[in-house]
């Protein structure tokens, strides 16, 4: 008789973490269609390893897998980016939304990942460094440059 407990645990984890994982993916890539592709790939990769992944590290495992999938996806699909048409008269909320999206997409992929992990996921410098396998000094500098660029972009849009 098959043991269905792992599947039930996986399903519970999926239900609990899906919204946050989709948010992270969307912040990284900037469109929901691609975000769902990234998230689905991440959970599909997680499933075979479910029994091996320790409870305390599942979130970290998922984040790492998602970011790696994003960086690989960026590289493979660099010529296929979707550019939405700019509406002639955007609503104010849409304007802010589009401005931040444009500012994020203007960041190099890894710098964007650093900014999103630091400021959306609220990870520490050490956690981001470990996740991206880069030095902590690099995380600090890339976060600084990313935030400086975002601030500059957002202030330009406000003017």
């Amino acid at each position: 008789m098959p043991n269905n407990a792992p599947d039930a645990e996986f399903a519970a984890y999926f239900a609990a973490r899906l919204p946050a994982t989709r948010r992270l993916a969307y912040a990284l890539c900037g469109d929901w269609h691609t975000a769902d592709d990234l998230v689905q790939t991440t959970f599909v990769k997680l499933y075979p390893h479910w029994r091996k992944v320790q409870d305390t590290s599942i979130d970290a495992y998922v984040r790492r897998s998602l970011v790696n999938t994003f960086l690989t996806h960026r590289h493979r699909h660099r010529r296929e980016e979707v550019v939405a048409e700019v509406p002639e008269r955007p609503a104010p909320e849409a304007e802010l939304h589009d401005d931040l999206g444009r500012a994020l997409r203007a960041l190099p992929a890894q710098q964007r990942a650093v900014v999103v992990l630091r400021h959306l996921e609220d990870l520490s410098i050490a956690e981001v460094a470990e996740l991206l396998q880069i030095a902590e000094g690099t995380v600090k500098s890339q976060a600084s440059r990313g935030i400086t660029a975002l601030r500059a972009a957002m202030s330009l849009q406000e003017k």
Partner: protein
Amino acid sequence: MADTDIQEALLTYTSDAPPPAFTLDEVMRKGRLRRRTRRLALAAGTVTAAVATIAVAVPLWARPSVPAVDPPAPEPLATCRTPFAKGTPADNPNIPVPGAADMMTCYLVEAVPRLLPGATFARETPERAPLEAFAYRVFDPKRAAETTPPGFSAGTVVSDVNGVGTIGFGASPATTDPGDCTGVCSVRTGPHGERVTVLDSRSDNGYRLVNIRIYKGGTEIFVSASNGVPAVTPTDPDRAYGPEDYRVGRKDLPLTVDQLITLAAVSQMQLFR
């Protein structure tokens, strides 16, 4: 815009999610298929464990995590170990041209001082000589997802009669459509027809940072310059540096934006073909 504002803006930006385009059942079905495929592949011996030693990285356009000296003491530039390796570029766009780091170093230690006569150059990170290029991430085909994008970096703190600032360089496979920059950066054409984006930011304290990306063949060349150096170690070491953490060291950048573009848009910086 404070850090909390950025966090709130990001939360708002990601809050209007449509219903997901996939279901748990799909995920589990594909996951089972993936597990079966992996087991079959392992049984057939077609998958080998990836044992990797990766040159990890301290990228270079990165700022040092400790305050820079003021003014930096003169230091010898990185040595150019010519002749560097030559050969045919690999088919994989993640594999750099042979001798990539040496080629970049050789070019920078010759070209940068020529534009800054009388300047002294100090190391930006303790591990690397001024303008010494190094691979901050090395592509490993067996761990492709974890080792892309690969990249090279080099940097220096520049001191001359006008004060102290920084210059950094990088090269990685071209991954970003310059069109992303619309409305945020200015877009230009480089000296050889390259697409160039320039992000020029200035803070209230006078700190100026310019990030330039040049798309040359399969390479995204990065060059950055600032008119300051880190002022103090942040009291909270877990906090990201912001413009307020830099001390203005000179009135303007060590090199102009045009000079930086001309300097970086060359074949010696085209490390990925």
